[in-house]
């Protein structure tokens, strides 16, 4: 296993966290911390509990064991009102943007400002234009969300996520379903926002190639467990066969192609189960 590269106080820390849906264990005894003001990527195949990870940070799910700490306080033990004030310090970019379909681009970005502040509308106007400018969509303010392409929708969602100047921003599969140009645009934005605003960023993704170019730290998950972490170079050079399989995209390896089952012969009724 590769060692972590940072020493500063982590903004997010998991201490032996487990999570299960009924009998299915999604996350098994995970202890990790995210370095502040850096971009961290969490890699893992589909169904390895990456999105669950983000929902645990946001307090939308509670771990069945262990604690998730945000800035030193346990998210899952917070009172309702404390949880809501913690969430104001987080931003989240959902997989497909999750823009409010009945609002315009402008109103989407203005939404968190209008809900949480009593700013005069002139000021909100300026703030929204600044946020939209940051993602390069100031000209699209009056469009409806249905008129946006996938990449544009995600940029608007990003502008909305940074509207309240969060300290932590989470990206759920930011590159899924985008063309190469849109992918680079988003990757570039993630980097720019991180350095310009000093935000801690977490990417949950299975898009290894793009991510390795922009992140500072990587965590690789498989089967609900952390199988390795380190800087992009360390991950690239890793000798762990599971990590190598994931990075190179091989079909079968330590991560099996087949879902656990009875042997093929038993399933087809040729042999009887022992």
């Amino acid at each position, binding site marked *: 296993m590769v060692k972590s590269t940072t020493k500063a106080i982590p903004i997010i820390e998991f201490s032996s966290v487990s999570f299960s849906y009924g009998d299915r264990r999604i996350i098994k005894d995970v202890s990790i911390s995210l370095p502040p003001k850096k971009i961290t990527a969490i890699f893992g195949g589909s169904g390895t509990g990456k999105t669950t990870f983000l929902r645990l940070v*946001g307090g*939308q799910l509670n771990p069945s064991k262990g604690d998730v700490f945000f800035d030193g306080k346990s998210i899952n033990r917070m009172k309702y009102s404390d949880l809501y004030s913690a969430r104001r310090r987080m931003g989240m970019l*959902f997989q497909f943007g999750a823009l409010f379909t009945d609002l315009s681009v402008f109103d989407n970005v203005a939404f968190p400002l209008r809900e949480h502040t009593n700013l005069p509308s002139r000021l909100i106007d300026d703030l929204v234009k600044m946020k939209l400018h940051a993602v390069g969509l100031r000209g699209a303010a009056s469009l409806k969300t249905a008129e946006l392409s996938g990449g544009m929708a995600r940029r608007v969602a990003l502008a909305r996520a940074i509207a*309240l100047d969060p300290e932590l921003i989470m990206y759920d599969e930011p590159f899924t379903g985008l063309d190469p140009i849109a992918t680079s645009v988003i990757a570039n934005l993630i980097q720019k926002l991180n350095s310009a605003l000093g935000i801690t960023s977490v990417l949950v993704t299975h898009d290894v190639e793009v991510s390795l170019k922009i992140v500072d730290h990587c965590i690789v998950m498989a089967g609900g467990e952390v199988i390795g972490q380190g800087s992009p170079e360390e991950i690239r050079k890793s000798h762990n066969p599971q990590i190598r399989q994931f990075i190179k995209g091989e079909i079968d390896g330590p991560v099996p192609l087949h879902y656990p089952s009875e042997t093929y012969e038993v399933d087809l009724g040729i042999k009887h189960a022992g």
Partner: protein
Amino acid sequence: MRANAFLKGFVAIGRITVDGVWKIGAGTKFILNVISRSRMTFQRPRLLIDEIFFTGTLSLIIIIVSGLFVGLVLGLQGYETLKRYGSAEAVGTLVALSLVRELGPVVAALLFASRAGSAMTAKIGIMKSTEQLSAMQMMAVDPYARVVTPMFWGGFFSMPLLAAIFSAMGIIGGYLITVVVIGVDGGAFWSQMQANVDFHGDILNGIYKSIVFGFAVNTISLFEGFDCVPTAEGVSRAVTRTVVTSALAILALDFVLTAFMFTGV
């Protein structure tokens, strides 16, 4: 084999019962949750006005047109029957009582369920399946207080008004067909109606009915939306369930309320 089929039957009955009980419990908890977060709705009337527009104003046309036609039919049928007994003037009473007591609240609620109720379910369901509700939570905005509760109150205030409009339009429809077209005496039409329709016993009870129906339809619609499987198919199924469950609830509640209100002893 037959024993097996019996067993399956029992299993099915058991599952339906468990599901039903679960739904009633979860629905009750849901609606209490919704109502307990009403503060924002009344602090920001803007939210309420938007939802009254969404549930009430957008249902106005269908309510007016249906009310008018139901009144026309009632007038025509009532006249044909009452004429045989030489009391065609009583057609006003017939039209008014049937509308104010039963058809107004019930048919308006059925139309409301299929127009506004299904739209509420679809809206909540789509917001859920596209993670808009989740996104709202992550922006530290309570989706109940911000989205669901205003819808509930919007529908709650719209329903009795829609029922009143339906009844009024129906009576106007009855007047048009019997007095203007057929030529029943207009004075008798109105006076017989006024002598026999009681404000408390008939009109207010009809309004109470529509308030109860509105509460039921809103609860069902919003709960089905919130509870749906977050996929396109899940949303469409939830919409269907809203219309079916609402219709059954309206008719069953109508029976219970009528038994309480109009069996005058």
